């Protein structure tokens, strides 16, 4: 167990510290590239993408202050009222460690923008293979988005990697249903 903790990457430690705070205030889900990376994909990223449930301005203010006290700062502003407007207008907020001079990594958080994002929140799960106590969007969601929406080389390789890791455990019907929704909504 001790070795496992020492084996954490800089990016993983960053995500764990952030999630430990945010988990006390809101339902969240980590999605996209970080999911593939925590499953062993050999590629880098500077940001971790997160969807959070829609919350009130007051609740967000509490969350923002907790992040601030926990050693994180938002790149866009220090004013929670301004930041809540960003979220409300579907702009992601970018948080970095406050002692790090705006260096990466950063956490990008956003409110759900449609049914697809809501669904990722509803079906979030911990993925034991990652060894992380973090909620992720389902493997099927990740594969569907990478194959149907993002579609660039890096994302298709991420999807291929996840398909191999979870061979025999993937719900193809679910992937197809998500892909159909992506075609309709995005």
């Amino acid at each position, binding site marked *: 167990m001790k070795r*496992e903790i020492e*084996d*954490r*990457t*800089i*990016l993983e430690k960053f995500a764990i510290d952030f999630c430990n705070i945010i988990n006390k205030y809101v339902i969240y889900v980590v999605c996209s590239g970080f999911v593939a*990376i925590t*499953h*062993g994909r*050999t590629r*880098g990223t*500077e940001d971790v993408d997160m969807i959070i449930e829609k919350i009130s301005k007051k609740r967000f203010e509490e969350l923002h202050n907790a992040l601030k006290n926990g050693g994180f700062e938002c*790149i*866009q*502003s*220090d004013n929670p009222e301004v930041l809540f407007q960003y979220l409300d207008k579907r702009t992601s907020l970018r948080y970095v460690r406050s002692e790090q*001079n*705006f*260096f*990466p*990594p950063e956490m990008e958080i956003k409110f759900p923008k449609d049914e697809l994002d809501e669904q990722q929140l509803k079906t979030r799960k911990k993925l034991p*293979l990652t*060894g992380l106590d973090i909620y992720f969007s389902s493997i099927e969601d990740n594969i569907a988005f990478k194959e149907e929406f993002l579609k660039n*080389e890096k994302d298709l*390789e991420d999807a*291929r*990697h996840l398909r*191999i*890791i979870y*061979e025999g455990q993937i719900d193809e019907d679910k992937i197809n249903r998500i892909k159909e929704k992506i075609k309709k909504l995005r």
Partner: protein
Amino acid sequence: MRDESHKEQIERWARFVKNNPHNWRIRLKPFLDSQMIIAWRFYEKLLKTEGGGEKFKKIRNLPAFALNKKLL
């Protein structure tokens, strides 16, 4: 467009991860961390150069709020 050998390597590595759930992390950690450490080292150097602060702000796509903060 990458060739077939790249695809094969992705598959080989994914199978290694799948079959060695306790070993792959220790192999991958230095590689993943080094990308972050190299970026940090570079940004620190960049910020010490003339106009480096402005370049850093552009590279990191920092908005107005951050632009007003003193770097380093």
